[in-house]
């Protein structure tokens, strides 16, 4: 790869570039495209669900198909949309924020994204191969073990493959942040998004293995006749619930903590003020993460764990409100006394505060175990988690995309369209989910294919469906914005927002080596400090020298393909032994690639000093 590779290239060259890339910025693009695609798919599923519920006793889709629909909606949105989109933003911004040239393990980074893409494809292939999973995204056994189609098998293998990729990303980001910060960037000088990426990575590292094991046990029960969840042979279905939520609850924080980081950046930037209570913010994040591992059983208050367990988990759950409250107040205090500029990124962030506060309110309400006996598994819960996941995560992703789009693609998203998107989506969102709080307590459990006539649930559901379509319109407007911007968007300068952190000190989009010279960091908001002292750019932290960069490789793609093929083999070997050929073939491909990787030295290449100097002219 040469620096002069900016001229027009053929499509196949670009494709090959993406297939073999290990550059964190291109990996971010892949996460964005993949996650964006699955987000649209999950949104479509949501609309189908809402059409089915537009009136009582509707028969728009059949009961079994409805179960597949909401199972895939949840699974897709959590694992294949929200997570990858967050990973896209992490990959795009975090290495730049710490002044690094790439992540610690570029190869693993590429492997992670391909595993996600192949896992997502595998999961969605189920639609065309006899039926999607239909036991809910929580996939409670024995419903999941009894499920007759291969759907749940696709769920198990798809998530196992995608989850392995996520775990790699977590480890990768941890090593990157610890080892690859620019000189002078101490931990307490890291931008808050880097901090939340770090803490989220810890959560990923300790939460995902529980899911891995849960999925293995489910897979063994379904495919190899083991008896973990089979009550007749002494198995216990509650084990699945525990394993799932030991993963599942931290997962919620994996989805929200990075978003807190994004908002912290945006509030500070567009208020032109330093983040209020930075230290408190960092420790609040840590506390939330820590408590996040202690509260999984609040998803299981009605399971019958006993009063003692329920009480402990109830109190722990409520305790999380304290650090979360600290954050909300710190954001408000950041804006207090500032000079607030409201653009699209800021609109999404401002919309987040009331929305997420409501989500937090209902969260505390749900934490009260006895009250939860009424809320549990009703539309109240559906409303609550959409308030936090859409009102938090999705709003945050939109905010982050508007904020970093210039850095990622060198163009600024259209502001007018951006604001329209926000307003339509924002109102659509509240229409859809606010009424659901009431529907739940009026006696509508979640995952209901139909609600009966004359139960006074008609109006609420109707409003909800209309709102969902407004959200759909909002998403289409955003897509339109993306396309319009790609075609004739305003070119972005290096620092379009008067930014405070290192990513704004380099060109948009940055050269593939990011920093010609790694910058010297002199405090929190490193770029802002230089600006206030009248410096045009960062002081270099090293002399100009050759830059060592990793080689691209097709191996991550092939390895992921191998696991994908093996996954298909696993799913179908129960039908016919010949499928073992596919299983072993896929495994051989994956492990073979691993051996090749291990045997072939990959020493990377150097961008020569002379070349860098030439470019500067």
């Amino acid at each position, binding site marked *: 790869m040469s620096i002069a590779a900016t001229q027009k290239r053929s499509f196949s060259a670009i494709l090959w570039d993406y297939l073999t890339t290990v550059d964190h910025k291109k990996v971010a693009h892949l996460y964005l495209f993949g996650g964006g695609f699955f987000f649209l798919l999950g949104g479509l599923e949501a609309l189908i669900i809402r059409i089915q519920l537009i009136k009582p006793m509707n028969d728009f889709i059949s009961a079994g198909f409805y179960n597949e629909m909401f199972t895939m909606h949840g699974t897709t949105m959590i694992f294949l949309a929200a997570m990858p989109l967050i990973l896209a933003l992490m990959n795009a911004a975090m290495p730049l924020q710490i002044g690094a040239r790439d992540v610690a393990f570029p190869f693993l980074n590429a492997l992670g994204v391909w595993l996600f893409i192949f896992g997502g494809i595998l999961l969605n292939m189920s639609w065309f191969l006899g039926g999607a999973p239909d036991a809910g995204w929580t996939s409670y056994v024995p419903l999941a073990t009894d499920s007759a189609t291969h759907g749940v098998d696709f769920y198990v293998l798809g998530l196992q493959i995608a989850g392995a990729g996520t775990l790699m990303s977590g480890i990768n980001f941890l090593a990157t942040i610890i080892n690859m910060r620019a000189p002078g960037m101490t931990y307490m000088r890291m931008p808050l998004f880097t901090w939340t990426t770090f803490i989220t990575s810890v959560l990923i590292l300790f939460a995902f293995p529980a899911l891995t094991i849960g999925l293995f046990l489910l897979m063994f029960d379904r495919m190899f006749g083991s008896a973990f969840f089979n009550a007749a042979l002494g198995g216990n*279905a509650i084990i699945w619930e525990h394993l799932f939520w030991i993963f599942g609850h931290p997962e919620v924080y994996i989805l929200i903590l990075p978003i807190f980081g994004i908002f912290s950046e945006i509030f500070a930037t567009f208020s032109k003020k330093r983040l209020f209570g930075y230290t408190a913010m960092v420790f609040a994040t840590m506390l939330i993460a820590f408590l996040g591992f202690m509260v999984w059983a609040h998803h299981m208050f009605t399971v019958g764990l006993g009063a003692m367990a329920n009480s402990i988990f109830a109190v722990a759950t409520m305790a999380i409100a304290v650090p979360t409250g600290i954050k909300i107040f710190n954001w408000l205090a950041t804006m207090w006394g500032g000079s607030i500029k409201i653009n699209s990124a800021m609109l999404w962030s401002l919309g987040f505060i009331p929305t997420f506060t409501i989500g937090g309110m209902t969260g505390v309400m749900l934490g009260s175990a006895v009250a939860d006996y009424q809320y549990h598994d009703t539309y109240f819960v559906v409303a609550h988690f959409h308030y936090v996941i859409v009102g938090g995560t999705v709003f945050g992703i939109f905010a982050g995309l508007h904020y970093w789009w210039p850095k990622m693609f060198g163009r600024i998203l259209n502001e007018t369209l951006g604001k329209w998107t926000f307003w339509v989506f924002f109102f659509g969102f509240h229409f859809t989910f606010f009424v659901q709080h*009431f529907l739940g*307590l009026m006696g509508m459990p979640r995952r209901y294919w139909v609600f009966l006539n004359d139960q006074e649930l008609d109006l609420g559901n109707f409003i909800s469906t209309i709102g969902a379509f407004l959200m759909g319109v909002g998403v289409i407007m955003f897509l339109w914005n993306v396309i319009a911007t790609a075609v004739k968007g305003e070119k972005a300068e290096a620092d379009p927002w008067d930014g405070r952190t290192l990513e704004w000190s380099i060109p948009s989009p940055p050269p593939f080596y990011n920093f010609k010279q790694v910058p010297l960091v002199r405090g929190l908001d490193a770029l802002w400090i230089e600006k206030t002292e009248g410096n045009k750019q960062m002081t270099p932290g090293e002399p100009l020298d050759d830059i060592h960069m990793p080689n691209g490789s097709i191996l991550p793609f092939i390895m992921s393909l191998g696991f994908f093929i093996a996954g298909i083999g696993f799913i179908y070997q129960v039908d016919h032994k010949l499928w073992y050929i596919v299983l072993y073939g896929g495994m051989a491909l994956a492990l073979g690639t691993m051996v090749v990787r291990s045997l072939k030295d990959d020493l990377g290449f150097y961008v020569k000093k002379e070349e860098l100097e030439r470019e500067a002219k």
Partner: protein
Amino acid sequence: MKGWMGKFRALFILGVLALVLTGCGKENLTAFVPKGYGAESSMKLIILSIVVMTFVFLSVMIIYTIVLFRFREKKGQEDYIPKQVEGNKTLETIWTVIPIILVFVLAIPTVIATFDLADVSGAAEEGAISVDVTGNQYWWHFEYQGEEIQTSQDMYIPVGEKVYLNMISSDVIHSFWVPTIAGKMDVNVENTNQMYIEAYEEGVYWGKCAELCGPSHSLMDFKVVAVSPEEYEQWVADMQSVDPEEEPQDAVAVEGKELFEANNCMTCHAIGSTGSNVAPNLTNFGNRTKVAGFMEMTPENLADWIQDPEKFKPGNNMTGTYPDVSKEDAEKIAEYLMQLKHTEITPDVAGN
């Protein structure tokens, strides 16, 4: 932008208003109007938490509004650089300590109520009513301990008395929820969960399955019929003296009974307190509130159901376990089943 915002806001307020106008949901289904011990405990905590949380929400919104009005970028002052504040110890302490206090306000009653609702020691007392509840795809079975009474779908309880439930599932996890009387509890496969319910008023209360259990999860409705203690005594006596072999009065029903037997319905369904319970017990079927838990109780609906249950409850376990039944035969069986009225204590009695 502003004008549009106003319109949106108006629409939004209108939507909320419409919702309020519909009231709090259907009587004896909604959790908003509790008529039982558990639902009341939950409601107290719901109200307490809403009050506490509204206080928090309003504090946030007041600051938020002030910020948005006072600290917007001013025209002509685009280059203004605000003071860079690091933090403020006092403020930060305040917004840490107050939430901690609020958490305590909420946590203490929660813990007390949790232990209170989990206390099923009364089940061992003399004269306590215990019902073994079995969740099945997609129906509920009730067996009254020590009374030799079995029934399905409609559970009769006396008002003002704690009724202890021992719940287990025969297939997948279900969840037992009668919103107006009590919060829910899961019905697991490998262990018996215990809870109690107590209704304050007579009435027919809607019950729902609240844990995904398959395609017809949303149709797994049941009823709790709360009657006066005297009526309950009579119901128990009547149910104990059921004669499963009793011949119907009219000719069609007699034929129906023969068909019922000829088609081996008894392999799965029982009338009376003995016999198979792999399918809903049909004792006192004629007094049920609904066919299959959710359809109006008419002979036509019942006949349709007998002919093709799959059409109404996808994934049910009845489909395909018996030979095809003609429309005529189905009507006759329906006629027989509809006259199975073993007691005067019916859902109509409840609340009168």
